């Protein structure tokens, strides 16, 4: 029944579509030729969105996104439990110390003792799991040669890069969204005060920016090779380096400009203010610069494939 209707709709559309060209072309012998003139180029936004939808389709029809999101939430759950246990231990201690330090309990709060370390841990887990998302972004297109389809379609390289980036950021957003369960839970059980939501949201913004910056770096590395494995492995190493470079500099007693540079390059250092609920322009521009640089370099790498 419905297929008959579709059939009618298709033939009807085809007949109407052949009208404008009727005087230019002889009457079509087969319904094959009954189509209108090629559609105009999709434009920047629609082109980008087409790529984003395709990447999301692949993320969510293969187990990859589910496995990584599951793994992420599992490890986060472990850290959350550990942080809550520690908080409870400290609370008991503070209760015993109440006679010496009447403010002891007041100095303890969910945001600093549970939520802040949780956000740091989430960012570090990102460094471990995001390479698995980004490794295939460009490398696999090169290996399958499907990149030729993208580069001979009427959209620009910027749309290709941005579309892939946005799709992966949406998966990151999912991951960040899943962790909302923890502050919600804390807020529910809080006897007083609860979670400082403004601080929490700023921290989440920081966490998302870390994720997005990691994605941009990973996508660039993926555009340099046609092997997913190589791309994933190199990305993992680079992200871990970006994570520990600050600690390494401190541990290695670096001084002067080397120390300052290492501290500046270190990703977690720029998360500190976000976690405290402070929006700092310098920190914001650190992550945004990483993102823009990653996107720009990926675009250059894709353009270079033409030569």
């Amino acid at each position, binding site marked *: 029944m419905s297929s008959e209707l579709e059939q009618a709709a298709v033939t009807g559309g085809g007949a109407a579509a052949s009208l404008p060209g009727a005087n230019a072309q002889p009457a079509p012998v087969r319904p094959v030729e009954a189509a209108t003139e*090629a559609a105009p*180029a999709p434009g920047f936004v629609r082109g980008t969105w087409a790529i984003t939808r395709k990447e999301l389709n692949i993320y969510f029809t293969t187990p990859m996104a589910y496995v990584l999101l599951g793994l992420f939430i599992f490890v986060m759950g472990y850290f959350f439990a550990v942080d809550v246990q520690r908080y409870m231990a400290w609370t008991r201690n503070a209760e015993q110390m109440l006679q010496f330090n009447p403010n002891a309990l007041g100095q303890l709060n969910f945001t600093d003792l549970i939520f802040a370390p949780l956000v740091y841990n989430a960012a570090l887990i990102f460094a471990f799991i995001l390479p698995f998302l980004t490794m295939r972004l460009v490398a696999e297109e090169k290996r*399958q040669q499907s990149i*030729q389809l993208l580069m*001979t379609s*009427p959209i620009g390289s910027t749309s290709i890069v941005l579309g892939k980036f946005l799709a992966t950021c949406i998966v990151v957003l999912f991951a960040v969204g899943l962790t909302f369960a923890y502050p919600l839970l804390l807020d529910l059980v809080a006897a007083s005060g609860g979670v400082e939501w403004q601080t929490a949201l700023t921290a989440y913004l920081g966490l998302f920016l870390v994720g997005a910056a990691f994605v941009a770096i990973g996508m660039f590395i993926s555009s340099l090779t046609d092997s997913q494995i190589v791309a994933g492995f190199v990305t993992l190493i680079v992200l871990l380096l970006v994570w520990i470079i600050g600690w390494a500099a401190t541990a290695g007693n670096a001084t002067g400009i080397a120390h300052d540079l290492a501290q500046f390059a270190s990703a977690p250092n720029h998360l500190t203010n976000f976690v405290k609920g402070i929006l700092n322009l310098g920190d914001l521009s650190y992550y945004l610069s990483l993102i823009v640089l990653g996107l720009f370099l990926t675009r250059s790498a894709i353009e270079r494939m033409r030569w």
Partner: protein
Amino acid sequence: MIRVTNLTKRYRDLVAVDDLTFEVQKGEILGFLGPNGAGKTTTMKILTGFMPASSGTASVAGFDVFENPIEVKRRVGYLPEVPPLYPEMTVHAYLKFVASLKGLPGKRIGGELERVANLTGVAEVMDRLIRNISKGYRQRVGIAQAILNNPDVLILDEPMSGLDPHQNREFRELIKGLAGQHTIILSTHTLSEVTATCQKALIVRSGKAVAHDTLENLTKTDPNASLEEIFIRLTTD
């Protein structure tokens, strides 16, 4: 419809296309012949706007490939040597993606998918993952994505590879059905395909054109020789 003038493409120390000049009229089907490595794929990649030439010009429907790539790309359907597929996607999702990539408005996509699916005979595998369909079907999905959005020009790089004799015959019919409205360049090694589908043939050797004529004229030069013999003679030193 397609005009190539003094086209040259140099890779580091290799001249892949050497001063190639030819024209394809609207509605013509051109068989693009030549041994492996003669520069067929390179020429096609330049025509589709995938890579720039070292010198010379190429234009499609009056638009220069280098100056107006977007206008060229929206008029060209391209099937590369390896069909550009995503094994993780279903045929339907894949074709829908290509349709949106080509700028087809959402309400026309459904009808257009049905049209190309019926034409190329992939209607029965639309909901299967591309990784699970046979090589012949993959090739057909590749052709389906090329003719989506009804482009004026079709550039098909060895479209018959991987098709069985039945599919070969169907494909021949399909190409003939597309002729007239579409201008088609197809490269192939199977000379019988050329005699069956093309009006003209362009034979290249080491990036240079050695013959460009209608099939009748090509075979007229030596009435006793088959196209194959002529091809062999033209492409060996």
